[in-house]
């Protein structure tokens, strides 16, 4: 049924329908409304779940780790500093192959402190072994949560999934969202059935010391499993479409790429703005397009190659940095095409929207304008040079 809902409440609604046995979270802007709403649902008896209040994100992540280790479906959500504070536990959750589902309300990272949107938090956690899916709008946010549980809990995966939604833009944006019924969700998502669990009746040690004889194999296993996820994700989106009628690729989305000469590659809500600009420029006869990356981890290298091999000018829009090097997504895009015969003439790198600076239609048009034969490296869009004249001597 369609509801006119704030993004955070839409997340709470879909999480409720997934019936996690344990929820644990620590409030942080802009994630707060999600877990407030879930806490209310539990308090009102609408959701039969144990809501564990904790003193920090490190503890919240540890609680959901423990919950899934005992064979229970679990959920947590966080943002920015909170995600970084979970960092150590995030590695453990993936390393122990526990399919925790986490919503990251994407927000900039301190210092200076800033509560607004960019992707630095989840991008900084890209090497943890978590699957990371980026949503464009709140319908996709809802649908990705449902698919995240199905994907992570698949017996061949057993990996945690982070659903990334832009802070404020999506978490506090109010949109019409189709929330499925409990029957539909139950048909799509079976109860969680672990491969192993902590159980006093059948004792085992989960996560013992693994010495040099066997550690590499545990890491190799995750690497290979994430490659398999690239095959499983399209199967799950196809199953999803059968029940819910909405079609996703799940890895990438190609928007008007067929004859495109200039294409922007981006993740998250900015893709909506880019689509509008693409439509406007197409109406004027410009051959432009968008490649949206939904699955940042695993990185769909082959699909990206196929989508962009005939495009001459590619601009990669990053909302995060790897300070001192290429912007994160741009570096990986270049890696996709290195050594290939068919490849873009240029792959330019643009950084925009850090710390919540609006990426307007004009920002996107500027990027398309700068997509010339001259390759740009880490070009900051909408930068204010007048603010760089501070002197502290």
């Amino acid at each position: 049924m369609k509801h006119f809902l704030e993004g955070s409440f839409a997340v709470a609604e879909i999480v409720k329908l997934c019936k996690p046995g344990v929820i644990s979270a620590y409030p942080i802007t802009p994630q707060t409304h999600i877990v407030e709403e879930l806490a209310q649902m539990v308090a009102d008896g609408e959701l039969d779940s144990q809501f564990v209040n904790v003193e920090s994100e490190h503890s919240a992540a540890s609680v959901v780790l423990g919950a899934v280790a005992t064979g229970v479906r679990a959920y947590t959500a966080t943002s920015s500093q909170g995600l970084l504070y979970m960092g150590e536990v995030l590695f453990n959750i993936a390393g122990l192959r526990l399919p925790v589902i986490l919503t990251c309300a994407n927000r900039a990272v301190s210092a200076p402190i800033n509560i607004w949107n960019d992707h630095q938090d989840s991008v900084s956690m890209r090497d943890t072994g978590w699957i990371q899916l980026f949503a464009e709008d709140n319908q996709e946010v809802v649908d990705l949560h449902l698919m995240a549980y199905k994907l992570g809990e698949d017996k061949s995966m057993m990996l945690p999934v982070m659903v990334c939604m832009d802070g404020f833009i999506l978490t506090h944006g109010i949109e019409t969202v189709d929330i499925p019924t409990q029957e539909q969700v139950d048909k799509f998502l079976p109860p969680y059935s672990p491969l192993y669990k902590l159980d006093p009746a059948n004792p085992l040690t989960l996560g013992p010391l693994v010495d040099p004889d066997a550690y590499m194999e545990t890491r190799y296993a995750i690497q290979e499993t994430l490659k398999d996820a690239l095959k499983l994700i399209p199967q799950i989106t196809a199953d999803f479409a059968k029940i819910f009628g909405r079609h996703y690729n799940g890895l990438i989305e190609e928007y008007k790429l067929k004859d495109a000469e200039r294409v922007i590659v981006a993740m998250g809500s900015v893709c909506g703005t880019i689509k509008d600009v693409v439509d406007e420029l197409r109406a004027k006869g410009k051959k432009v397009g968008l490649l949206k990356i939904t699955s940042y981890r695993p990185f769909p290298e082959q699909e990206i190659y196929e989508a962009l091999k005939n495009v001459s000018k590619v601009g990669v829009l990053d909302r995060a940095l790897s300070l001192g090097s290429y912007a994160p997504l741009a570096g990986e895009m270049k890696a996709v095409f290195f050594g290939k015969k068919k490849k873009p003439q240029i792959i330019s790198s643009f950084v925009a929207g850090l710390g919540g600076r609006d990426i307007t239609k004009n920002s996107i048009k500027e990027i398309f304008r700068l997509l010339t034969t001259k390759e740009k490296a880490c070009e900051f869009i909408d930068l204010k040079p007048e603010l760089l004249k501070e002197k502290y001597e």
Partner: protein
Amino acid sequence: MFGPLVVKPGSSRKNKTGSWRTELTPKFLKKNCTGCKLCMSVCPEGCIIEGSEKNQLACDYEYCKGCGACAVVCPKGDIIMVKESKEEAK
């Protein structure tokens, strides 16, 4: 695909950790042993094999780490530490 992440009970016995032993190995001379079992009480690995009478206590080298506590505590000096290569106790 999965790597080794889960261990069932009994792994301390299954894993023959004697391979970690230092170059020194306790040798039970079995000459002046009184059967006081002080060596058993101090062994951090619990790998002294109990005998019911004197001169019957022995070391289980599949788990012994060669710490030497048994040799130090033996009131009769009946346990000595020897270099692994010269060790004849096995």
